[in-house]
């Protein structure tokens, strides 16, 4: 995403750039989890009607988490030229809004409807910034880039390449064949046919549609240095359509009498968010739910390859001035978003070092912690983005409805192509039928 941070001083970039600090913070939290210095990451509890249940026996732990996150992010802010004290002052209010976002998302009915913390965090931030305005004392803590990139380094740990090899060819066929084709189609359609001026907006919507919704949008937005408004728009669209598809797809599949296994693979390859895939797949039966989850998991893992490819393409092609030669390796290195190295490094570390040495069970325990940390960082990022956004600017991004047209055409193409692939792979044509 576009860097709004204050200009770096003459100290080495390893200590002054947001990308490197994302790697240091992500690495620190991964180390804390691997060496069991922390055994649980506090969160807001699930609740139905009793508000108190969300915070029962959790207040102190949440306060300590807020304090810990404030300290490490303030350290980064200080190193990047900000103020340690001012960052902390604003951070606590930011953290409070993040807690409120999780509180809303964890209500039983809201959780079942699939409206997650990202939506509430953006909404809360937008309401504050567009009514009373974001207070000046809060602004030093609004480091959405740092929170997103740190979250992405932590997300890298969850991309276990060794697992995809165990998940079987039919799932790989559906998830990995269709996804790149849809991204390519949507990118060409958005830039050439709809003539959307911002290629970063197009690629963020394409990734959210074809890979895995919000998490893919975040990763690709950071890799392509998209504007915050562009990410907000892509996330908003994907959240709304995911809920609609979670409800309508199982209904349609049952209505036309489609083989539930083929239908599940179709859901796994098209519904954006993983939770919604699992929920929609479960509507078709236990085996179908399992197939949907596995296809989505394989697609989730593709996020690393997509983010890396987009970062390289942007540095070598999009950001290259027209008429100039291909940039030299040193220039590519200078422009390359370095947090991607942390993202890929964490994935490789977990896939090929920690899983073989610690074993699957221990790594699952570590990932439970790192994914909770990642959730907090993404939530802080979305609150920050909301607080930095103006609804009028967001409406200009909508640009005569072209981004929505892109999403609808891309998702329709995705639905058709994935249905064909699901029939070929899970309908007993290319591979033996699965249970």
């Amino acid at each position: 995403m576009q860097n709004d941070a204050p200009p770096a001083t003459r100290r080495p970039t390893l200590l002054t750039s947001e990308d490197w600090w994302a790697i240091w913070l992500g690495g620190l939290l991964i180390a804390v989890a691997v060496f069991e210095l922390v055994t649980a990451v506090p969160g807001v509890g699930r609740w139905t009607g009793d508000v108190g249940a969300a915070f029962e026996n959790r207040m102190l732990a949440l306060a300590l988490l807020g304090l810990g996150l404030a300290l490490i992010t303030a350290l980064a802010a200080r190193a990047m030229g900000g103020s340690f004290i001012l960052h902390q002052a604003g951070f606590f209010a930011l953290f409070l809004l993040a807690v409120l976002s999780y509180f809303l998302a964890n209500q039983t009915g809201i959780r079942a409807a699939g409206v997650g913390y990202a939506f509430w965090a953006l909404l809360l931030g937008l309401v504050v910034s567009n009514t009373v305005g974001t207070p000046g004392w809060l602004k030093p803590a609004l480091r959405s880039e740092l929170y997103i990139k740190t979250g992405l380094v932590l997300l890298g740990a969850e991309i276990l390449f060794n697992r995809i090899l165990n998940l079987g060819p039919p799932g790989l066929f559906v998830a990995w064949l269709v996804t790149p084709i849809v991204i390519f189609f949507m990118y060409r359609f958005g830039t050439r046919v709809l003539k959307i001026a911002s290629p970063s907006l197009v690629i963020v919507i394409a990734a959210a549609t074809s890979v895995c919704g919000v998490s893919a949008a975040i990763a690709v937005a950071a890799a392509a240095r998209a504007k915050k408004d562009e990410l907000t728009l892509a996330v908003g669209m994907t959240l709304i359509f995911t809920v609609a598809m979670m409800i309508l797809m199982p209904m349609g599949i049952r209505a036309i009498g489609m083989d539930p296994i083929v239908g599940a693979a179709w859901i796994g390859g098209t519904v954006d968010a993983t939770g919604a895939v699992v929920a929609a797949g479960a509507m078709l039966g236990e085996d179908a739910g399992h197939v949907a989850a596995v296809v989505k998991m394989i697609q989730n893992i593709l996020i690393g390859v997509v983010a890396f490819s987009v970062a390289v393409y942007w540095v070598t092609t999009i950001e290259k001035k027209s008429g100039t030669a291909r940039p030299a390796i040193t220039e590519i290195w200078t422009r390359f978003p370095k947090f991607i190295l942390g993202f890929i490094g964490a994935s490789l570390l977990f896939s090929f070092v920690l899983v073989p040495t610690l074993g699957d069970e221990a790594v699952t325990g570590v990932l439970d912690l790192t994914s909770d940390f990642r959730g907090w960082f993404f939530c802080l990022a979305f609150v920050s983005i909301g607080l930095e956004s103006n609804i009028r600017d967001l409406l200009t991004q909508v640009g005569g409805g072209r981004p929505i047209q892109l999403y609808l055409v891309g998702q329709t193409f995705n639905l058709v192509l994935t249905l064909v692939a699901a029939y070929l792979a899970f309908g007993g044509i290319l591979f033996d039928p699965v249970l």
Partner: protein
Amino acid sequence: MGYGLWAMGARVRQLARLAIGVLAIAALGFAVSQAGRLPWVLGEAIRANVQADLDATAMFYTEVDGWDEWAPSKTR
């Protein structure tokens, strides 16, 4: 005096807009939490999620309970 009154009025309007915004979020939250009550198949998926205790908000596969047990399906 006049400017002070104008500034106070502007602040009151901002706070009123904030209160309306917060109320709107609360109303939206309440409406979404009741989506399972929608008639016919519209609320069916949400009711099933509540019954099976499924988290439809999970962003990535590692947030879904039991992800570490997912394996390729057996052939028929």
